[in-house]
């Protein structure tokens, strides 16, 4: 029982972090048709900027705010300088965002130093609770709660507010939305910034969870994010949550029961999805033929 609960909590916590990363990816893809390979770079910048703010101010909350602001600013710069010039050209978009990813990763080493940084969990989130014979680590629960809150907020925004309506209309048919008088380029920019901020937040929350941050972690987690986006269906927000939880749980269970397979399990999951349901498990709309 204790083992099961712990594995589930581990899986959920990892899943939530991947979800925050993948949510931005999938929104940006659904709306702008841009697969942002630099997302991992934004993630790692969020982690470093957040943690350095946290160590400087000694307040975890200000650190989180720092990460989000950094992410949004980087998103703004990226959209304006990198995405806009190659808008509409898929090959160039893929190539250029990968280039940005490498620049961001190397810039981390220049600005913050090439070595990993150890991160401590803030005291009020450290430690664990004991419920009966089940030990629950506080920080993991914290991540799960934050993940669900953010999912709730976004789901509400997307489904119930005017902003969400505009974004959903853009995902469905951007030419039509534009014809109806929506400044779609501006919506792109905001969505990109929000996606970048989510990636940065994910990086910041990941830091105390893994205990150490390093420049290459961006690429590692970005790959998980891509896998989640493929499994969940590109452009599907709730799909990415379910897929992220699936990937997180599969990872945590495999790591315990069949450690050899834990590396490959995500790849196998993705391969199965690609064979049988290439548009993703939870994709609503059909893949357009273009």
């Amino acid at each position, binding site marked *: 029982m204790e083992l099961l609960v712990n594995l589930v909590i581990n899986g959920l916590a990892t899943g939530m972090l991947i979800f925050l990363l993948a949510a931005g990816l999938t929104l940006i893809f659904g709306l702008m048709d841009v697969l942002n390979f630099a997302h991992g770079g934004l993630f790692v910048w969020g982690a470093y900027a957040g943690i350095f703010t946290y160590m400087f101010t000694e307040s975890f909350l200000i650190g989180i705010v720092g990460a989000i602001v950094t992410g949004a600013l980087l998103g703004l710069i990226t959209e304006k300088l990198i995405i806009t010039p190659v808008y509409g050209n898929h090959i160039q978009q893929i190539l250029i965002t990968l280039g940005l990813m*490498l*620049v961001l990763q190397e810039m981390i080493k220049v600005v913050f130093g090439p070595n990993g940084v150890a991160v401590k969990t803030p005291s009020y989130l450290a430690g664990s609770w004991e419920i009966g014979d089940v030990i629950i680590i506080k920080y993991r629960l914290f991540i799960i709660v934050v993940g669900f809150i953010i999912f709730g907020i976004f789901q509400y925004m997307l489904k119930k507010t005017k902003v969400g309506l505009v974004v959903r209309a853009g995902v469905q048919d951007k030419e039509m939305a534009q014809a109806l008088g929506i400044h779609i380029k501006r919506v792109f920019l905001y969505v990109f910034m929000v996606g970048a901020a989510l990636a940065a937040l994910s990086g910041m929350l990941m830091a105390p969870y893994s205990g150490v941050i390093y420049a290459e972690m961006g690429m590692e987690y970005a790959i998980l994010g*891509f896998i989640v986006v493929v499994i969940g269906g590109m452009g599907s927000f709730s799909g990415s949550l379910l897929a992220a939880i699936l990937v997180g749980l599969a990872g945590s269970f495999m790591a315990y029961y069949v450690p050899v397979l834990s590396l490959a399990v995500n790849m196998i999951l993705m391969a199965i999805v690609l064979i049988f349901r290439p548009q993703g498990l939870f994709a609503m709309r059909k893949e357009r033929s273009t």
Partner: protein
Amino acid sequence: MKMKLPLQHLCFFLMLAILVLLPFVNDSRTLMILLTQIFIFGILAMSYDILLGYTGIVSFGHAMFFGLGAYTTAVMLKQMEPTLSTFFLSIVVGMLLAGFISFLVGLLTLRLKSHFFAMLTLAFSGLFLVVAEKWRSVTYGNDGFTFRAPEIFRDRMTFYFFVLACLVVIFIALYRFVNSPTGRILIAVRENEQRTKSLGYNTLYYKVIASIVAGTVASLAGSLYAISLRFVNTSVMTMDITLDALLMTIIGGVGTLVGPLLGSAVIEYAQHALSGLARDYPIFERWIIFFGILYILAVIFFPKGIIGSLRMMFWKWRLKRKGINQSSVTLSQEKERFE
């Protein structure tokens, strides 16, 4: 195009003659190593261009095939007798492995939009990198291992000629390949996949062929690379290798075979020069930043690369000489070629 061919052949033989005679004029160790390196990465970049330039699909996992070749050769030469026959056997095994994996990956993702292939190859190469790091009993992880190269390749000059021969063979083979009916269909896929499909071609089949050809040739480049260092570690699987291939192809010119070779020469020389500078200015140790920025700028402002731009200038010049003002037409055609 037909009229240009003799000139191209002349250039080709002239270049080859220079490269063959060069070691007899100047056989300095640094130059030999640099040129060997340029040839090896030239092979890699050419194989990459089959995908990017000719078929119009982006792979981010080219390092995986390169690394596969390098590890196959290294492991086999270490575990078995370091003879020439083992070496050739290892090349064949590496190419078969790479061909099989590129077949698998291609079959899974090439049905879908280009994003999926880019993403899946990235994920796969990430998996291979982790396997290379964790499977310590064979790969010795990040520390890597040294091994004995076949006796004959100990001599830098022999190895130089061997790599040059490989380069020439691969160049001619790929040249024949892209000008074969299959190659033409690949270009048709790049130009307009829907139309090619409606003409009755099974485009998936051709795209998988392109991915297999690219994978096997990259594996050969990896085998040669392992021999050139007589050492292998996980760096052959990293993103840097893919980035190198990408950068060389884009700087040199996508959609040509000479472009990647030229790109390889430019990038390898630049790396050589920058690592020299790094001794005096520590900022140059992070030369990937410069390459990354260069690469982003090249994608935005210079998407056709050196060869592509030269070719466009040549066309414009020829049109002008003929007195036909069609430069706008040519421009838009050239633009479409890349998109």
